């Protein structure tokens, strides 16, 4: 069984043996950008509104201040995204913005729609 010895995830690790310290381990990095073309980042902690993250965007380090809470594993914007514009993660389009998304905004189903499997738009087959 492969078990982590130390994780940089912000989580409480249960003590499994003496070599594993039982403590909350603080992340050095609180979020990850997967591709230089991305306009969203993925959080690696339960981030709070007002948190400022130092992130490398397009070769330069930028400070992004969160406008809302962003849970672990969820996304926030790195730049202003206009309505009907693509939201990009992994360097690929993951959906379309439905409203103006400002830098630091939480990005999820309330402001992004899919362009695939949209039977509601095509009307389906009767």
């Amino acid at each position, binding site marked *: *069984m*492969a*078990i*982590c*010895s130390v*994780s*940089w*995830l912000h*989580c409480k*690790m*249960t003590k499994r043996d003496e070599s594993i310290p039982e403590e909350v381990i603080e992340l*050095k*990095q609180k979020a*990850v950008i*997967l591709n230089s073309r991305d306009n969203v980042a*993925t959080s*690696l902690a339960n981030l709070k509104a007002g948190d400022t993250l130092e992130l490398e965007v397009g070769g330069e380090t930028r400070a992004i201040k969160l406008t809302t809470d962003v*849970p*672990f*594993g*969820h*996304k926030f914007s790195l730049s202003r995204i206009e309505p009907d514009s693509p*939201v990009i*993660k*992994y360097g*690929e*389009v*993951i*959906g379309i913005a439905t409203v103006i998304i400002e830098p630091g905004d939480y*990005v*999820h*189903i309330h402001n*992004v*729609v*899919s*362009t*695939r*499997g*949209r*039977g*509601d*738009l*095509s*009307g*389906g*087959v009767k």
Partner: protein
Amino acid sequence: MSFLGYRRQNGSVGARNYIGIISTVGCANDVTWRISQQVKGSIPFIHGQGCAQTQPDLDIVTRTLISLGWNPNLAGALLVSLGCESVSADKIAQGIAESGKPVEKIVIQKVGGVTSAVAQGSVLAQAMTIEASRIEREAFPESELVVGVKCGASDSTSGLLSNPATGAACDLVIDNGGTCIFGETTEFMGAEHILARRAATPQVANKIMDIVARMERRATAMGFDMRGGQPTGGNIAGGLTTIEEKSLGAIAKGGTKTIKGVYEYGERPQGKGLFIVDSPGRELEFLTVLAAAGVQVIIFSTGLGASPGFPFVPVIAVTGNPITYERLTDHLDVFVELTEEAATGIARAGKALYQEALAVASGKQTKAETMGYGNFPNIFTIGPVI
């Protein structure tokens, strides 16, 4: 390096050595189940299909049951038929027998009902398991390894960690001359162009695009936004916003190698290398299609903790979500550590997963196996029950 497996007459190599008790139709499930509970060394395959369906679906069920019988983890098969179902039990028996394995059949309506069928079926299965028990494990090269990969109950950690680690293991299988099989066509939507670039031929690339378009037409035909069904409510709670985002993370588990072929549901890929089988990603149907494709072992990547096994194929559950790993220790076999150097961590986890696949192929039990978790699979069908 090598692993210890069971040699089959047709040249395939098993990681387990069961006699499959296989229902030809849902109405035979209870008898199938009781025989399997009666006879040690036998294993049931029960499902809800096989009758009152249109011909395309009956063809899928027939070829899937035949291919399951060919799976190298089975030393032989006992078919349990009701007697009046739409699929032909004789045709299925004949198809499995072509693998060179022993095949028996019991028909409930002919032998006089449930009690007789369970009694006679158990006697048949008992003789088959005793015969199978004489086969000993022997060493085979790693090139005989056939691994299936799957993700389920995905969250953001799946695309970041456990899927790439699974993909790294899949690449190692291919590098060592073996075979890796993936699919979950719905979860190619939005990422199919990336897979098509890895196709061995333009025909394979076109087939990848075609199976995704076909699956999307089935989904949109219902007249609803797919979101909520795909991605699931759990995926959304885990941070996945759209099917495109889910797909881009999901395809990582298929590694980076050339895709040699695309097969229909229930078909058996020919040759070695990386293949796609067309199927939606739901566990019940997808684990079945992997077993039908002939995999010995399945690596199952999860974020939130779905890790059902399959009756006769061991499933190795892997997660990169530390909270899930802590909470579901009795489900999960491998944890992928997120390290400062993500690429190094994933490569290391891929090696660990590959080693685990070899160990499990040689007989090491997975957690799902020891729990007997995964007895109720199904077969994918495309049309209505009529």
